[in-house]
């Protein structure tokens, strides 16, 4: 049985088509990433899958339960961590946890035990009797995640879990998620952090303008755009003045300055290496380092979403 199954989910807000026949499935124990630019439909998808928003058409099931027809059964097995740290500022950390546990019908003894355990894991037990009002952004985020886990969910929805967090909170949250995955919890996460998805997810779906552009494992997605390979070179002189010259080399699709280095995009790395070596000799440049790199998940994301920065478009072959 799938943890999540979405069939032809469509959501229309007035004239805006927020989701357009979105279909996918997430297996039990899988970590599934949902990537997309702002306004692509990520949060709308989560709101439909958690039963907060009704789709215009299409269906979704959670462990076999239809989220619209059997909402309460479906929700019992899920934990939800929303994009904003939606904690009750005037309640203590302890009361926030207990309240959430009560909403999820967790028994008295279990909720106190689970609350203690989670507050300890997230480094908040010492502050359990303080109102959340005085907590830092990272502490509130950790508490939000702890609240999402208080009912021991089989499926965890994480909307931008580590966005804008300090290093300590980031590490704690990633560590907790890694442990949940080991325990067999299914994780459905949306993120802007492509590297996070690359490291954490078994599969990712890339959504753009309400449509799924691709679904696969990060490595398989990268293989689909092998043409976006690159070579990173550092010279002993400033690379800035040679950017145009390097761009003119045969088989170089684009050249970009990255710090004190230059990155050349190509579909033929070997030819570019020869060309760069000849260029360096001709201009009396010494090559300090040269590394070839395959396409990143970010390249896949940019390719599939057609992301542009101003008028500039990242290289696409």
């Amino acid at each position, binding site marked *: 049985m799938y943890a999540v199954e979405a069939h032809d989910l469509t959501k229309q807000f007035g004239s805006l088509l927020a989701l357009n026949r979105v279909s996918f499935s997430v297996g039990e124990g899988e970590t599934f990433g949902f990537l997309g630019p702002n306004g692509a439909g990520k949060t709308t998808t989560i709101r439909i899958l*958690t*039963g*907060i*928003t*009704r789709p215009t058409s299409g269906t979704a099931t959670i462990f076999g339960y239809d989220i619209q027809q059997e*909402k*309460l*059964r479906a*929700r*019992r097995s899920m934990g*939800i961590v*929303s994009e*904003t740290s*939606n*904690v*009750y*500022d*005037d*309640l203590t950390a302890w*009361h926030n946890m207990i*309240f*959430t546990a*009560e*909403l*999820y*019908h967790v028994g008295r003894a279990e909720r106190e035990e689970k609350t203690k355990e989670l507050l300890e894991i997230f480094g908040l037990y010492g502050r359990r009797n303080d109102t959340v009002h005085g907590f830092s952004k990272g502490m509130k985020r950790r508490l939000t995640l702890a*609240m999402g886990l208080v009912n021991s969910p089989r499926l965890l929805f994480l909307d931008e879990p580590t966005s804008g967090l300090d290093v300590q909170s980031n590490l704690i949250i990633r560590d907790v998620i890694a442990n949940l995955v080991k325990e067999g919890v299914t994780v459905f996460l949306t993120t802007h952090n492509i590297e996070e998805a690359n490291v954490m997810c078994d599969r990712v779906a890339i959504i753009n303008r309400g449509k799924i552009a691709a679904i696969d494992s990060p490595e398989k997605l990268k293989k689909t755009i092998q043409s976006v390979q690159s070579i990173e070179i550092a010279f002993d002189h400033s690379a800035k003045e040679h950017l145009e010259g390097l761009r003119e080399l045969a088989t170089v699709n684009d050249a970009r300055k990255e710090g004190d280095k230059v990155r050349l995009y190509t579909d033929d790395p070997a030819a570019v290496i020869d060309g760069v070596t000849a260029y360096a000799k001709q201009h009396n440049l010494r090559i300090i380092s040269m590394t070839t790199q395959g396409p990143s998940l970010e390249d896949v994301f940019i390719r599939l979403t057609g992301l542009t920065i101003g008028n500039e478009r990242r290289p696409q072959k």
Partner: protein
Amino acid sequence: MTDVLFFIRRIPQEVAAAWAIARKDMRTYYLKPNIIMSGLLFPLFMFLAFAVGRNAPPGTLIPGLIAITILFSASSIEPVSIPIERRVRTFDRLLSAPITFHTLVVGESLSGFLYSLGIAMLPLIVGIAFYHTPVLHVVTLMAGLVLSAFCFATLGTLFAAYPTENVGEVMSMLNLVRLPLIFVSGVFIPLETMPVAGQYIALCSPLTYANDMIRFAYDGTTHFGPFYDIVFLILFILIFQFVANRLYKKFNQ
């Protein structure tokens, strides 16, 4: 069979969840200045504006003061708390929890209900301690307090269903209903002395029955009789609960 068992097992869980929502509101909102202002001070000043200068002994005005205190205090919590929770996204927690909209509406209403019962004790105690106003029918008074408090708390929850993050918007709409109710429900102007049209309008106001029942408990005078007061207050509760439930469903899906 499993559906029936699931439903039966759910009832105590839903009750517990409603009580948890009420407790959360108590901890969070009871001492908020705008709730104290609209729930306690507003009815007091409104009452003084009408009571000062009248020939009636102050003690006879206590039932009316209790009725409007309950109206304002019971209906003041949710119109403040729910828009705030929408703004800070904590309301999403309630919408995404495994609870029904009925539980949400009852839980939200419970906090206003308990708040107003506590606030209503003030004029009650003032009446007894300072004006020696006797209560003839204690049980009727208790029933009247409980029913009217829950009725007006549900009214507040109903108005808070309006999908806004602005407290002022809900309060403006609510006051558009609450303020006229005071004048058409026999609180300051006895029903008998009102024009016929006014008397018909009074029949549509839950405050009419709350005021009538509380007045009966104090001095034994009544327009409808406590039985009909109870029936109509229960009817208003059911209507408000039903409409609130439908509105929360409509605006949140």
